């Protein structure tokens, strides 16, 4: 019982914010991944000469999302 109270007492506003941000970023990473997959699927459905640009943008967006998640986990 005392352990539970101890854990609850150790929860600070900052740790709550950290968990919220990490959870949000994990969900966002899934979204960014789906976005990348959708771009790939669309490029397959309609092949356009400049399709590689949007593919690069999609991959770049996903990499940025992963980097922000890693930064949030390590820095916070």
């Amino acid at each position: 019982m005392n352990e539970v109270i101890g854990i609850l007492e150790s929860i600070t506003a900052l740790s709550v914010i950290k968990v919220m941000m990490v959870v949000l970023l994990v969900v966002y990473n899934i979204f960014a991944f789906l976005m990348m997959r959708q771009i790939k699927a669309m490029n397959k459905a309609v092949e356009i000469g400049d399709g590689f640009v949007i593919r690069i943008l999609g991959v770049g967006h996903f990499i940025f999302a992963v980097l922000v998640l890693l930064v949030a986990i390590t820095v916070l």
Partner: protein
Amino acid sequence: MGEIYKRKEEKPKKKESLSVEGLRRSIEKIGRESFFTSLATFPKRVCFGEQNDDEVIVLFLRQHPIVNLPWIVTTIFLLSLPALFVIFPPYTMLPGAYQMVISLIFYLFVMGLALGKFMVWFFNIYILTDERIVDVDFVNLFYRVISTAKIEDIQDVNVVSSGVMETFFNMGTVFVQTAAEVPEFEFSRVPRPDKVGKLINQMIDAEEQEKIEGRVK
């Protein structure tokens, strides 16, 4: 009494065949296949999944690039917002690392928003081939519809251009009524709608000509 005027016998002109080659010659080249083009005739670097081997893409269309202006302006505005975060006390009370991560998350969201909007424009494609019309509707990330109708099923073509913006930028909407499963195709806010409408009508003529000549695929 002498003859005042004698009409010269004119040889009837041979009607040019409206086959694909005929179309290439008869269709006025509109637009060009450049980077992020929104209008191009006979594009070389475009093909779609259900395209037949001998099917030729006559027209490739997207919405006029100017339709992207609102989200570009919004994105620029949003990108400048983190500079104002310092005004809000809850943000300033946070440690530096938290402030940095919040700013990064904000930039990430803005990037996602801009990419999503760009995708909607990029993948909303209208294709006219020598056999059919294809409408690729990319509504959002999780909803897309690809509709097709044969040229012979096209019943009516209407071109609507209204409003200051559409008149200024020479864009409009081309409505194509069909007897196919999808009763109406809407080529929304495309550049040079009058030319597009004319081209679709030329394709209908070509299809009818093919039917008469017994060259229906």
